[in-house]
């Protein structure tokens, strides 16, 4: 085994990893190392060739590869070393990382570690879609890889299950490449993608969206021959008599993303079952001191710019930890209340301003977002529109946190 020692090890060289590594470096960590399992830096954005990235960070709409290149150039400029084709097999609580690469098996000892493994797609197996198991069932991301990076045609007539952003983007992509997208079905009564993607990916191309619908059966022995769509009731059970069989050769799934926390779990880090990511404090430190998490491995984001920003914070914290800077106690607990699915971070100090990230349970209009400490309302924000597809961020000032023991976030009708 090849042994190495670094100050900050970053697991993952995608949007979160690069931003975290840069931030760690800029905040004084001398010896930063990025470990990436792919053959390039950039992660999933290499295949996200559509535009819409970078508005928050750079003020321009960039494609995924352009957005990433800015970070890659910066990593090169700061001479941050990175390992490619290198898979982290294990992260231990004493901050040793086992990495497999063609150069050999490495044991990297790091003062602090930033987990940036991103997320994976939910599959047909996880949503328990009945029917046969033919070729032609793809997750939207795998399809995106085949089409955008390899130039394969994955099918001629497709149905897309799930209206997540990747599904919507792929509906347009398939159409542009000459395949026919017959329908997008969404089990929820509202789209789980951003409204702008509904407009520019579906409406522009006249692709029908069926809300409160799901695929109840996949047909075809060798390759997909058809799928059955059915309407669902409020408990997501298919309603008998609403089935319609659609002939197609492809079923694309865009049914949610799951943070890839296998390494995290194995390390013994506490996981929030709601986000499926680590429990973190305002420094984005996990339950193991010196191990930090950010980006989609912490919670699935809607916009990559927010991943980069969150990762900056984790990078800074990891650099400070590696330099032995004393940490403020984090005693204020955050809790999602009525109408809120989750709030991050889980613990706060009252020592600095802090940005909370959260998602609502269901779409709503004209609501009040209330942050309280249980007795006292700390902050109220009026929202004309909230949507589970969109992450909400709220900054709390240091003085607003003074004297709080907890922060409860809830949604209330404005009227």
């Amino acid at each position, binding site marked *: 085994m090849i042994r190495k020692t670094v100050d900050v090890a970053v697991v993952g060289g995608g949007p979160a990893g690069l931003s975290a590594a840069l931030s760690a470096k800029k905040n004084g960590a001398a010896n930063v190392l990025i470990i990436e399992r792919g053959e390039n830096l950039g992660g999933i954005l290499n295949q996200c060739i559509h535009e819409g990235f970078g508005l928050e960070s750079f003020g321009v709409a960039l494609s995924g590869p352009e957005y990433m290149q800015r970070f890659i150039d910066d990593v090169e400029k700061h001479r941050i070393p990175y390992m490619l084709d290198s898979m982290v097999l294990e992260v231990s609580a004493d901050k040793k990382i086992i990495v497999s690469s063609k150069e050999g098996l490495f044991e990297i000892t790091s003062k602090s570690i930033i987990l940036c493994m991103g997320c994976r797609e939910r599959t047909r197996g996880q949503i328990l879609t009945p029917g046969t198991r033919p070729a032609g069932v793809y997750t939207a991301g795998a399809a995106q890889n085949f089409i955008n990076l390899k130039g394969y045609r994955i099918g001629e007539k497709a149905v897309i299950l799930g209206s997540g952003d990747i599904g919507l983007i792929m509906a347009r992509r398939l159409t542009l490449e000459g395949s026919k997208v017959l329908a997008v079905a969404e089990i929820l009564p509202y789209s789980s993608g951003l409204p*702008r993607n509904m407009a520019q990916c579906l409406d522009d191309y006249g692709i029908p969206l069926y809300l409160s619908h799901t695929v109840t059966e996949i047909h075809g022995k060798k390759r997909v021959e058809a799928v059955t769509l059915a309407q669902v009731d409020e408990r997501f059970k298919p309603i008998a008599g609403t089935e319609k069989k659609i002939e197609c050769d492809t079923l694309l799934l865009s049914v949610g993303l799951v943070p890839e926390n296998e390494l995290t779990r194995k390390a013994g880090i506490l996981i929030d079952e709601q986000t499926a990511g680590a429990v973190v404090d305002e420094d984005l430190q996990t339950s193991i001191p010196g191990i930090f998490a950010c980006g989609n491995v912490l919670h699935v984001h809607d*916009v990559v710019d927010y991943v980069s920003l969150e990762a900056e914070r984790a990078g800074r914290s990891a650099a400070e930890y590696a330099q032995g800077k004393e940490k403020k106690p984090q005693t204020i607990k955050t809790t999602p209340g009525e109408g809120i699915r989750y709030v991050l971070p889980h613990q706060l100090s009252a020592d600095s301003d802090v940005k909370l990230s959260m998602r609502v349970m269901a779409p709503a209009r004209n609501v009040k977002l209330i942050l309280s400490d249980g007795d006292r309302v700390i902050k109220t924000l009026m929202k004309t529109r909230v949507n589970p597809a969109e992450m909400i961020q709220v900054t709390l000032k240091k003085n607003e946190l003074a004297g709080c023991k907890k922060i409860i976030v809830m949604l209330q009708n404005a009227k």
Partner: protein
Amino acid sequence: MPNKKYVCIICPNSCEIDVEYSGKNITKISGQTCKKGEEYTRKEFTSPERGLTTSVPVHGGTIPLVSVKTSKTIPKELIKDAMAEISAARMNAPVKIGDPAIKNILGTGVDIVATKNVPKK
């Protein structure tokens, strides 16, 4: 006054914008939260435009395809023809972000440019 609703596609906020109009003229715009939103909506009302992203085969590169985009938006109704023209385009490695694959596509004055660096194999 007749009105139309738009979802702004400029940024993830996806503002819902209301347009009141008479004939070909906009009389009132509401719902946007920034200047870009207003610009987008005015354009969308008269002559909608879109950016187009796709990919082009690259010869002699470390990867087989390079992603490309329109350097500026093009009229929405030209998207299909633009895709047809792009399907014949090829690039040669090395490719740098911004290198043109096609200049002045369909006479629009807009170029198709690379959005990825592709080194030589």
